């Protein structure tokens, strides 16, 4: 005997309600299986294949691409790829760090405005974030031109040759990366700051906590949920970025993303590109794992 039960707007048996749930679930589930999971598996498979002489894929199982990733090639061992991997992690780390340092003042600034003004300030943060990245990155290229003040100041300080642009350089990459990812930290951080319990901060001040102690013991723990989301939304996409290093870093400052893009387009070496992608996924998983380990609940909404 099937017992009838009421489930939100429905009256039915457990089986019929579950069937309705499946009906809602299946379209998206199938879509994600076919266009996300299966392609992902295909990418893994290709990483273990070989590249034919015309750029086609030969299905001979080989670990060659993975050993190439580690630097072993026909000319012996070279650290080039490992340097690019390490640089990718480093650039993502510095980008995240600078973004967090700039995001705190901005988040507190917005939270300190009057309620009806906050929407305006938030919109001001959202607008660049929604403007196409290629455009914003190109715009930095424009600003770094030798005739404009930035390059001239740098030249006056003897940081660059007079008459040259500020890009390509690592500095240009950092500027581009921070301006690309800063809003990703500001928005979640702001939602934490908005909910801050100020009585705890006041209590810390009343108890003569030093400024840094007030920040680290009364403010930081309360903003940790927003900060966590911001750091994840910055660090992981920063590792996969190729537009900014491509336009602002030039050939000297490649990241893994550039290497993957090159394999898929100019060198037509998909197996190596797939192997590099696996390397990037691995870095991503390690980053997420470190976050889990540190005991913070990862919640992206």
């Amino acid at each position, binding site marked *: 005997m099937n017992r009838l039960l009421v489930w939100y707007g429905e009256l039915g048996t457990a089986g019929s309600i579950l069937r309705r749930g499946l009906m809602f679930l299946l379209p998206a589930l199938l879509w994600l299986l076919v266009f996300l999971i*299966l*392609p992902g598996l*295909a990418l893994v498979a290709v990483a273990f294949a070989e590249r034919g002489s015309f750029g086609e894929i030969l299905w001979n199982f080989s670990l060659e691409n993975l050993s190439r990733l580690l630097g072993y090639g026909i000319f012996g061992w070279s650290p080039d790829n490992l340097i690019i991997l390490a640089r990718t992690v480093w650039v993502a780390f510095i980008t995240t760090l600078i973004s967090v340092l700039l995001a705190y003042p901005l988040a507190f600034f917005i939270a300190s405005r009057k309620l009806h003004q906050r929407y305006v300030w938030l919109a001001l*943060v959202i607008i660049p974030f929604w*403007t196409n990245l290629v455009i914003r990155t*190109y715009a930095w290229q424009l600003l770094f031109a030798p005739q404009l003040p930035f390059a001239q100041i740098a030249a006056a300080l003897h940081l660059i040759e007079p008459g040259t642009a500020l890009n390509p350089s690592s500095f240009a990459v950092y500027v581009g990366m921070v301006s690309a990812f800063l809003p990703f930290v500001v928005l979640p951080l702001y939602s934490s700051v908005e909910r801050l319990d100020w009585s705890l901060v006041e209590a810390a001040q009343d108890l003569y906590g030093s400024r840094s102690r007030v920040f680290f013991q009364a403010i930081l723990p309360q903003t940790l949920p927003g900060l966590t989301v911001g750091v994840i939304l910055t660090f992981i996409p920063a590792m996969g970025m190729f537009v900014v290093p491509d336009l602002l870093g030039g050939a000297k400052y490649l990241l893994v993303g550039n290497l993957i893009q090159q394999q898929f387009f100019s060198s037509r070496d998909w197996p190596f590109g797939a192997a590099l992608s696996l390397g990037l996924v691995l870095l991503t998983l390690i980053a997420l794992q470190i976050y889990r380990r540190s005991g913070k609940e990862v919640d992206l909404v």
Partner: protein
Amino acid sequence: MSRLPPALGITAVLTLAFLYLPMLAVAVFSVNTTRYGLEWGGFSWKWYVGLFQNDQILEAARNTLVLAVASTLIATVLGTMLAIALERYPWTRRARTFLDNLLYLPVVTPDIILAAALVVAFSFLRLISGIFELGMVSMIIGHVTFQIAFVALVVQSRLRSLGRDLDEAARDLYANYSYYLRRVLLPLLAPGIVAGAMLAFTLSLDDFVISFFTAGPTSQTLPLFIYASVRRGVTPEIHALSTLIFLVTVLLVLLSERLSRRAA
């Protein structure tokens, strides 16, 4: 909160200025007459006029819109259904964990990985079927794949805030399921669905990487066009185009702000 150290306020305003500086530069150069170099040659709208006479740009603009509208429509339907399924039906703990992970996967995967995986999968499809070419369809598929999760997350948070009362009331008043869906659930969800769709739409306009990998040789979008021009050496029309895209973004943000405030 009331007291903010002045240094903090100054840093904040400078940081915001830093975010706007690039757009300001592009806008200034878009009304500069000089074709080569960056010297100021006088004010003119001629690059904007040139924009609307450039067939390639108009074609790319049309592609961008078709891509954004089509992918947003598909992703909004699928994402909304997924959110209702996740939030309103009794899944086992294990199924729930699997679905949550599946949903976060496209959010946390670097887009270049999804792009590379899709290109590989599409080439297999072509190998097997012999007919599939990269183009608008493959771009739409790519965009929907990352949009679904964002739509679902937005609609899900709306569903969570609704509670059960109205669903139960509809049931008590003998509404059948389709009536309940049309007259109770969907109207209540509408603000969330619209917000999710707006997000999906702007994500599509903003995307470069997925389109870059899955576009194929024939279909170009505005970001792809701008990227190609930047690599070739920029013409001033690009400044005008970028400024217009920026202004459209401003309008979209204001519009969605207005919509979400009305919904709240």
